[in-house]
């Protein structure tokens, strides 16, 4: 079974703090993704990575950065947390193939509250 784990289920941070969200997958997947999910807006892609040290911006990258130093680990960084970054953060991973459309497997999510 594919397993994607996230470092925290719940996190409370103060405005201006630097926040690290960690994601680990155990299936040797090349691709990893970070989404956020908000009521009425659905899931939106923040950043993704298709290889170690490679990253691409998604639809809403402003205020975020990422790091991928090892294949199995993908970190999302909030350089200076703001209240509008309060959200559910979901990590996902999948295999890279010629067809490019393998299903993504999601972690359990981290509910981040910024006060």
């Amino acid at each position, binding site marked *: 079974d594919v397993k*994607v784990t996230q470092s925290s289920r719940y996190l409370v941070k103060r405005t201006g703090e630097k926040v690290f969200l960690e994601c680990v997958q155990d299936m040797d997947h*090349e*691709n990893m*993704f970070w*989404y956020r999910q908000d009521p*009425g*807006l*659905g*899931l*939106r*892609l923040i950043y*993704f*990575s*298709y*290889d170690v040290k*490679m990253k*691409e911006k*998604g*639809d809403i990258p402003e205020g975020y950065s990422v790091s991928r130093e090892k294949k199995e680990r993908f970190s999302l960084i909030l350089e200076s947390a703001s209240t509008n970054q309060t959200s559910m953060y*979901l990590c*996902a991973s*999948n295999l*890279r193939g010629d*067809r*490019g*459309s*393998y*299903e*993504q*497997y*999601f*972690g*359990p*999510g981290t*509910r981040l509250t910024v006060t």
Partner: protein
Amino acid sequence: EDQVTQSPEALRLQEGESSSLNCSYTVSGLRGLFWYRQDPGKGPEFLFTLYSAGEEKEKERLKATLTKKESFLHITAPKPEDSATYLCAVQIVSGGGADGLTFGKGTHLIIQP
């Protein structure tokens, strides 16, 4: 602009009452359409991938179909444990290495005993 629209937003059914959820999409080039199930407070759980018009996939009480403009998730004789939010997502053709998904806002399904 690529768009994915799901309807209805919410649906309440009696146990055993079959129905369909709709996902309509407007994309420049479809690489794949995905259905996920999400329970409250959890990450989405993969259900199906559809690649081309006319394709169908089945799993227990669920059946997904795809046309050139929309996909349907048919639920036959649902049970209370089928209650969840069902998400539709598309992946488009692009030149990049990995591509994220564009999600609809989901259909919140409640099955009453």
